[in-house]
């Protein structure tokens, strides 16, 4: 198989889409076969190889073209690399029109879209609709995303929308020396990991902070660790001060992979009560550490968090959220069951699913 991967980012920033698209790159390389070749074209990344690239590639990997956000160059490269490809996997709806253009110039090319979440839960422009209708398949990360796509583009044949849930990076699995964290002693220690962007207030970090006074009424040593950075941080810090819970909430800022692993290992439960998660890769990351997860009954989250692995609450319902934290502390989930659940989303299963859908 000769494949081309289009992605907004792979290594420039640590976002959810970048992480999952690296795994698409890895899976494509494994599926390419001895005579195959996989190229990657990335809009935002800079030219040149990132040190992590070898983790996600093998001998079948050909060219890595970073475009430093230059869109014209991205289009030109897509046309060039598309000429020799049979399969194009597009990592974002915004780039699908380019995939369609590449197909027009190379009619043998089949293109696929990875539909993550919020970017496809909306009405589409004419250009986007045409590009969607031309896709061989749309790889939806959850049933929820699939239904949203059908809602906003009813002309899509439902059988073309298949579900390929996100997967865990094999390099992220726990190791013994992860079990160290600089965080002070706390019970329970609640961890959340997300981008703190003012465009993403739906993530529910503010609701977690608002629940802390209630949580601490029952667990005076409870502590909330917020991992991530973004322009919404000042607002959240002000909220912490207003509620007088500064001594119970830590903003760690962005962390290295190693430090993040330590946070997962040290926490008692993971919480991201978000209203609009397409899937919620961070839940899986916490689960692989055997940690129970708390999410909102919204978006794709209920497809990841089950009763055996955590608890779902109504988005924005502060008393519900505090009660769920208390319940997860009093009735901890069996960490082995939680890990086994995460294993069902392991990379080999993801690769098999992708192989079937690209066939």
């Amino acid at each position, binding site marked *: 198989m000769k494949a081309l991967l289009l992605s907004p980012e792979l290594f420039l920033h640590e976002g959810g889409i970048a992480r999952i698209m690296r795994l698409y790159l890895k899976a494509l390389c494994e599926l390419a076969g001895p005579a195959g070749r996989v190229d990657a074209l990335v809009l935002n990344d800079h030219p040149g190889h990132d040190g992590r690239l070898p983790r996600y590639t093998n001998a079948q990997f050909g060219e890595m073209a970073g475009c430093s956000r230059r869109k014209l160059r991205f289009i030109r490269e897509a046309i060039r690399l598309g000429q020799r490809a049979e399969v194009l996997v597009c990592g974002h709806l915004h780039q699908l029109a380019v995939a369609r253009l590449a197909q027009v110039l190379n009619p043998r090319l089949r293109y696929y879209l990875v539909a993550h979440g919020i970017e496809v839960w909306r009405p589409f422009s004419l250009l986007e609709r045409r590009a969607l209708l031309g896709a061989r398949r749309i790889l939806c990360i959850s049933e929820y995303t699939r239904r*949203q796509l059908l809602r906003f583009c009813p002309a899509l044949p439902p059988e073309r929308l298949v579900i390929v849930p996100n997967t865990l990076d094999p390099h992220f699995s726990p190791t013994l020396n992860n079990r160290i964290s600089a965080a002070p002693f706390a019970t329970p220690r609640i961890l959340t990991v997300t981008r703190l962007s003012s465009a993403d207030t739906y993530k529910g970090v503010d609701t977690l902070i608002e629940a802390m006074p209630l949580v601490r009424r029952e667990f005076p040593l409870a502590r909330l660790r917020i991992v991530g950075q973004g322009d919404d941080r000042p607002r959240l810090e002000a909220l912490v001060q207003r509620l007088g819970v500064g001594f119970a909430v830590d903003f760690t800022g962005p962390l290295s992979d190693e430090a993040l692993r330590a946070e997962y290992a040290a926490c008692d439960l993971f919480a991201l009560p978000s209203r609009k998660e397409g899937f919620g890769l961070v839940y899986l990351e916490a689960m692989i550490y055997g940690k129970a997860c708390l999410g909102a009954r919204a978006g794709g989250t209920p497809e990841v968090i089950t009763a055996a692995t955590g608890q779902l609450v109504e988005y*924005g319902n502060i*008393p519900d959220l505090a009660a769920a934290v208390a319940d997860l502390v009093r009735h901890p989930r069996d960490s082995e069951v939680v890990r086994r659940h995460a294993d069902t989303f392991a990379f080999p299963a993801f690769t098999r699913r992708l192989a079937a859908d690209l066939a």
Partner: protein
Amino acid sequence: MCGIAGLISLRHDLPAREDAVNRMVRRQQHRGPDDRGIHSDGPATLGMCRLAIIDPANGHQPMTSPDGRFTLVFNGAIYNYRALRIELALSGWDFHTHCDTEVLLAAYALHGAACLSRLRGMFAFAIWDAREQRLFAARDPLGIKPLYYARLPDSGLLLASELNALLASGVVTREIDPTSVGEYLAWFSVPAPRTIYRGLANLPPGHQLTVDAAGRVETGPWWHLPAPTRPDIAANYHDFVGGLRAQLDESVRAHRVADVPVGAFLSGGMDSTAIVGLMARGGAAKLKTFSLIFGEAGFSEQDSARLAAQTFGTEHHEELITGARVAADLPRLLAAFDQPTGDGINTYYASQTARRGGVTVALSGLGGDELFGGYPSFRDLPRLHRLLPLWRRLPGGMRRAIVEQLRARPTVRARKLADFLTHARDLHELASLQRRVLPETVRLSLLAPEARAQAERLGPNHPRLEDFAFELPGADPFQIISAWELRTYMADVLLRDSDVFSMAHSLELRVPFVDRPLLEWLWPQRPWFKYDPRRPKHALADATADLVPAAIRNRRKQGFALPFAHWMLAELRPFLDETFSTASLGACPWLQAAEVQQVWTDYKTRRDTRAWSRVWTLAVLIAFANRRPAP
């Protein structure tokens, strides 16, 4: 029709459980004055009070299967019970009564949850499986009969037909939920599964609930709206009208099954006249019909109702409703609510009139507007939907300026349009937003900070937007709007109010248009058969053209409304002045008192008399918060 109650709990011992269930049953006595009973097994106690309609001499509940395994409490009526009884008897069930309750018990015992798809009727029931130590409960597809519940901290469950009963159990606390207040101000009612009280839930229509031996509670839908298309639809309009008439005849025939007197509400509009016509054609002996009339010009449909009664030869009863009477009855009306509602007082009086007129069951034309496109939304929303792509193409700055201009205008219409343009992305969101009572900016201004923050988080759209949108892939615009009207205003307001206010007078209200077989037949038919914007409800008119007088068929739609706008400035004014007083608003910490008082002041100074429903909705909420709990 009955009231049911239950408590499943390992934490409560038998006397405590029975005491709680007895309290709940007593609190619902008006729903079923004819009989009551209670049954306990293991951690479960079920209770009920019965309004005897079918086989009144038998049918005591809770009803237990002969082997002692299943015990049922059931609120509602199964109209096809006779046909099911024959099938179940052939399968080996030995019937001891001629009651629909025993048919439901047998159907569940033999087929489990699969029996639900065979039931034609209105129902909310709970069945305890003593062998599996498991509770199963379900509610009819469109939400005619209610079922409320609360999960208990020890993994148990409390359930009842009314919220007042749950509160009377003494097991849960009475605390108004600020989030629900925000929802109420948006929708005229609190949409299921939420209720006005924190921790108490409303099982949504077409949903089932199970509690297993470990106390785990699960809920989920057992029924969905049909697929948008089917191969066996009518080939032409003539066949469609013939088929529709057959379906209507069958539905009305099914809904008349009873061993007590059956009458009908007759407002004089198209829907109720069609129902009465079909009943009269179906061979009802001297049918009793009931209308409300008003002294105020422009509200009574007295002439149409009389014409219909005369045409069908019914024994027609009219009841004059005045502002003074409503004012005098307000304490009783407010006591009948189990959560606030901005609607339903007409049903209270119509039910009272019917019960006093000597019937125990009455049929109503509720549901006709939702099924046959009687609301302006069927005409307006598709037009607005076609404009949305053009709107989105305008530059962002221009769109923002237009929205700001609309929001600055004093009319609700302009602000509602601003909501559409800001928040609606497709027809589902338009249909969701069009049922809002208050524009978003006004709603938020009335809420205190905590409730406002929560309302902002949840946004202006209906809380079940995605459930409803996902239920209808590939649906046409008529189906989408019809589904929204059925799933929101009809289920959360009309049907809920109908249940509460008819039960307040121990009257069983039946709704032949809200009938699953009729809906499943009608749903996939071609949209242009069902709806013509120039002649709303033409399909119903044509299917009953031989029954409904032309004067009624050709009349413009008039809602079943009361002259509240006038009464609120006259007879109801003292009540409203007191309700909007600072002392009264003290019981509403989730409202911004000054803003709320301004709404009433604006109304009194007649700056916007069309706002009566919004003022009344607020007043009912405040009065509800000030209500003393019943003993």
